[in-house]
């Protein structure tokens, strides 16, 4: 069994013999077999000129040579597709022009997707591997695997990257099926302008035609009744016809305020996955990958420093890395750790504002709804013990206060108690996703 590519190559060899060289070079370059269906060969040609001429002038030759190679071929159809055409000078490096470029985005108009976002540029770590795996499943079996897929988590962790990547892979995989990426904001605006222009019907038709609809930041739908209703019907329509839906949000749908239960339950019907801020290892992997993308080799200690100081947000991490890269490009000498420290002063390190122990205690006590004073007391009531341990853990991890000092501040406790508490939380963090979520929330509050 030969592949379509081989089949066409063999046919071309034969055609080259029966057709004059100029004719062959003019008409057969950039042609390829798009697909073979029920004995019909669909031949992709670069333009209508080529289609019209090949079908009138060379149809018999093409058909004859294809039939000679494969008996199942009955007809040849010509379709205009520029899929195979790849200009070779695309890779050519161009000299940066002396004029600043306009910020034109290369957003794909039909799908509204940014082709820059693909899975291959997505760094996977423990913090997002589930979301990544689910995305791959959706790409493999759109409409079947997890429908809808909702990815939630705080800003700057690659939610948009991931959901756009699903769209981009889907588009490449099945170019004839329709995919569309829209932010909920844009969706709302579309609806409002359709309403004003009296074109609600065409709005409905527009969104109902898609085989894969990706909506970013669905939390913004909350509180807009008309739009929520329109969205609800759209959701039902697409979901009932087994069209894949992919969403992102900054919170779990169940905690989005002003969102009706019918929408919450629909979001939750498929798969709801969190992305959490990356751990140290992942951050290190991210800076490595991004630096490699820019073809820059940074010393390990600088990468390490980046991954340690800039916590939480991947976007900030990229920002800090870019600051370093620009410096690196401008001066041609290798970056040392000290350079990096000077350059990034104010980026991550200073972002941690001075927080007193009292503040931490107050915030965490508030968070858990226990009285601040009870933290300092000797009580071992369960509802107080956990917050107290969390406080000690955070004081140690985030503020690097010594164990004895923490013990002292916590109402004169022994430093071994503090060590035990920190170990306890650390161990619990491994299996307890609720605790993870809580600590993350607290860290945000302390910033």
């Amino acid at each position, binding site marked *: 069994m030969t592949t379509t590519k081989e089949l066409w190559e063999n046919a071309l060899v034969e055609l080259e013999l029966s057709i004059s060289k100029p004719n062959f070079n003019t008409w057969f370059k950039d042609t390829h077999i798009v697909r073979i269906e029920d004995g019909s060969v669909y031949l992709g040609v670069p333009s209508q000129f080529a289609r*019209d001429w090949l079908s009138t002038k060379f149809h018999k030759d093409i058909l004859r040579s294809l039939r000679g190679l494969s008996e199942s071929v009955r007809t040849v159809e010509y379709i205009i597709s520029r899929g195979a055409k790849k200009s070779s000078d695309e890779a050519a490096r161009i000299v940066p022009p*002396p004029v600043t*470029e306009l910020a034109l*985005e*290369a957003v794909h108009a039909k799908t509204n997707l940014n082709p820059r976002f693909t899975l291959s540029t997505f760094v996977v770590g423990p913090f997002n591997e589930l979301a990544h795996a689910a995305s791959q499943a959706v790409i493999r079996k759109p409409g079947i695997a997890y429908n809808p897929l909702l990815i939630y988590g705080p800003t700057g962790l690659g939610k948009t990257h991931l959901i756009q990547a699903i769209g981009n892979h889907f588009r490449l995989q099945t170019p004839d099926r329709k995919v569309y990426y829209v932010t909920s904001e844009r969706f709302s605006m579309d609806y409002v302008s359709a309403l004003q222009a009296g074109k609600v019907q065409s709005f409905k038709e527009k969104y109902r035609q898609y085989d894969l609809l990706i909506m970013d930041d669905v939390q913004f739908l909350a509180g807009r009744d008309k739009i929520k209703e329109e969205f609800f019907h759209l959701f039902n329509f697409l979901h009932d016809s087994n069209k894949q839906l992919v969403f992102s949000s900054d919170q779990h749908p169940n905690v989005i305020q002003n969102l009706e239960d019918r929408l919450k339950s629909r979001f939750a019907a498929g798969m709801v996955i969190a992305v959490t801020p990356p751990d140290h290892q992942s951050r290190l992997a991210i800076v490595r990958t991004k630096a490699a993308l820019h073809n820059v080799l940074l010393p390990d200690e600088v990468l390490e420093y980046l991954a340690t100081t800039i916590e939480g947000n991947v976007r900030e991490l990229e920002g800090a890395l870019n600051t370093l890269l620009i410096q690196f490009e401008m001066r041609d000498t290798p970056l040392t750790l000290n350079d990096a420290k000077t350059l990034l002063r104010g980026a991550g390190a200073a972002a941690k504002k001075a927080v007193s122990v009292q503040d931490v205690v107050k915030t965490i006590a508030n968070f858990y709804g226990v009285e601040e004073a009870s933290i300092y007391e000797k009580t071992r009531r369960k509802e107080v013990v956990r917050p107290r341990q969390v406080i000690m853990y955070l004081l140690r991890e985030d503020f690097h206060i010594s164990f004895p000092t923490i013990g002292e501040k916590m109402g004169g406790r022994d430093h071994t108690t503090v060590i035990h508490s920190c170990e306890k939380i650390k161990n619990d963090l491994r299996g307890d996703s609720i605790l993870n979520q809580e600590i993350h929330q607290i860290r945000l509050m302390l910033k």
Partner: protein
Amino acid sequence: MKFESPTDQLLKAVSTAARFAERRANLPALSAVLLVSEGGRLTLRATNLECGVEITLPVKMDGDGVVAVPAGVLLGFLSNARGKSVTASLSGELFKVESDKVQASIKTLPHEDFPILPRVSAEKSFTVKASDLMRAIRAVAYCASTSTIKPELQSVLLYGDAGKLTLVATDSFRLAEKNIVLKAGGSVPQLLLPARNAAELMRILEGASGDVEIYYNDNQLSTHIGDVYYTSRLIDGAFPNYRQIVPKTFSTEAVVLREDFSTSLKSLSVFADKFSQVSFAVNPAKKAITLSSRNPDVGEQISTIKATISGEDLAMNFNGRYLADSLQAIAGDSVRVQSNGPGKAILIKDAADETFFYLAMPMNR
């Protein structure tokens, strides 16, 4: 095959067709003008497979026939022909032309290799005034990119809705947009017409009067203008969403006389360096714009033009050619220049005409 035609008519048709012929063609037939005589009419065809043209002429003729004549040779002969009329005939592989005692025999090319010109069904079309379309192409096409890396930027974008047809082109350093009245056609989707082909369409439109109806499908665009049929392929791609980068509010605004601006830019170009760098400073206190250019090998020039200014001081460097280009699309007396400060784009408009704008980015050093 034999025909006779007034020299000027034939010359005009051949010179139009010759522009569409491919000079360095792989396929020899593509460097030819195909002449088809049939039923009292002579049809000339030429194409480079990017765009194509077909021109019909009424001629006196004797017998039908087809011949492919090298475009350059035929044009060379006709442009120097003195006589009022030209007679032509085919004998064997030689195309014989004669005008006022000058005779020539031109070796023909195999006409069987000459392709058919694509036709576009009349299903989807729009109508605009020919002169409007011509001016709109002229107003934007020079902004298209010449690099082959992004074919979508090598094109002129056309789209229309609500009685308005918009043409846009950009090479990502500057951008021009022109709106004209869309007489019929409802909503026109985004069509990417290669800029070179757009320029040919513009030249054909130059002599035309009245309205022109443009037919299109996903891959091809065609139109009839008088006796001329024009067709071009469309580029499959996505034009960047440029609307979002057009600034709406400005920190500095100046109005100057077009004549002043244009003259000083021309004069400055003499002193400009290899990047055509011109520095552009707006001084609200002095009510003047100061332009200067400097080339270490030539010298320097400073010119000051009067302006009505509101907003803040501004000093930026531009490619002088980019600034000058914008003025060719502006017909009014005064030009409005708007900006949001260093590093940001500058917006240039006809002060009295909202249908056109031009956006240029400053130089980054």
